[in-house]
């Protein structure tokens, strides 16, 4: 699953528009992921200037 490290995230949106599925969104200054759309491809993890996203093995 895609894990958002909220303590690192700066809620900037750089990851939002690289997600080919449109699974990410900034809602009330929080990054949210729609887990049923996310296919854990990891593309968004590369866009983050801070390293706040991680694809983990957890279900």
């Amino acid at each position, binding site marked *: 699953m895609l894990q958002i490290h909220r303590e690192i995230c*700066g809620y*900037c*949106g*750089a*990851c*939002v*528009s*690289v*997600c*080919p599925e*449109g699974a990410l*969104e*900034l*809602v*009330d*200054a929080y990054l949210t992921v729609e887990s049923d759309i996310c296919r854990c491809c990891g*593309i968004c993890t*590369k*866009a*983050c*200037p*801070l*390293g706040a996203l991680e694809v983990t093995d957890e279900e």
Partner: protein
Amino acid sequence: MKNEYDVLVVGGGPGGALAAWTAARLGLSVCLIEKRPAIGAPVRCAEGIGKELLKSFIEPDPRWVSADIKRARIVAPDGTTIALDENKAGAEVGYVLDRKVFDRELVWQASKAGSDVFVKTRAVAPIMEGRHVRGAVVECCGKRQDVRAKVTIAADGVEAKFARWCGIDTTIPLTEMMSCIQYLVTDIDIDPNSNDFYLGNDVAPQGYLWVFAKGERSANIGIGIPASKNKPDMRARDYLDRFMRENFPNGKIIECIFGGDPVSRPLPCTVADGLMIVGDAARVVDPITGGGIGNAMITGRLAAEVAAKAIAQGDTSKEALMPYDAGWRQAKMGKTLERNYKVKEYFITLSDEKMNTLAQSIEGINFSEITVMALLTEIIKRNPKMLLELKGLTHALI
């Protein structure tokens, strides 16, 4: 908030503000919604803008101009510096804004012109009738309502979710999304009238690092590199921190911002039935500099003008809104975007050595104007051997 407007603008950045301001001035009923609790904050920008461009929208005001820039310096990987001086060059360099205040001023103008403005109010879905966009479902403090509009202007910036919800692919490839981080640093020795750009694969691979003066002893110091260049142990933040340690170890960081800056080509089409897309959402950012404030304002204003005509004629179909798309593409802005995209594509192929050679060939020149073409002409005049090197670029430009 009413349930029906002529124009609904989603997003309160410079693109949305100019759209709302212009539409209201043209006598339309306008609603501008901004999902953040405050217009202009947090700012995601280095705040640089050309003087003439800015003045074509609004008279500069010391309340939101932080620095009047007279020089730009481009520092090559080996330290060779190309100085572009306003006095010598005769061309304007620009201002560094205080965007928190600037963005508010633009929205304030929109409001004064008659536009309704709602903050902490976000679009959560478009209202669609078949393929025609008829407004948006908006959410304000947990309460949802329909806001119908003859034309909806998506000015929601880099995220560009609204157009995506309407079925338009706004995805940015990793190579074209600049992953940015910036510190506002105080108590440092800088030239308060200079904007400096540092290049090189060691400093900012395929991007650049900037030091934009924000007053006597403070500056926006930031970096943008393609998202594809971020490595787990070497992200944009790591490059910037290293630069800070080496150049401004005693600077005080009083603000830290992050953001994405799309340096792709614009969307293939920026209109649909009942929908217009402006600014970063339309991907009209300068691919070389990453600058998008001016282009957001240009597209915002033009979109509102075209919307007003379409609404007056009672036809807000894609076809009726097309003059907006064609308008900005055929104007100087569209042509510059296309040319600068090709220039960027060329520059990202350059090794540090080639960048140094280029910089050495133009060091010390007094340019008559600060344009890409002027730079190229001078390089070739001074160092005809560079013609071969620049073949790819000249080919791109002609």
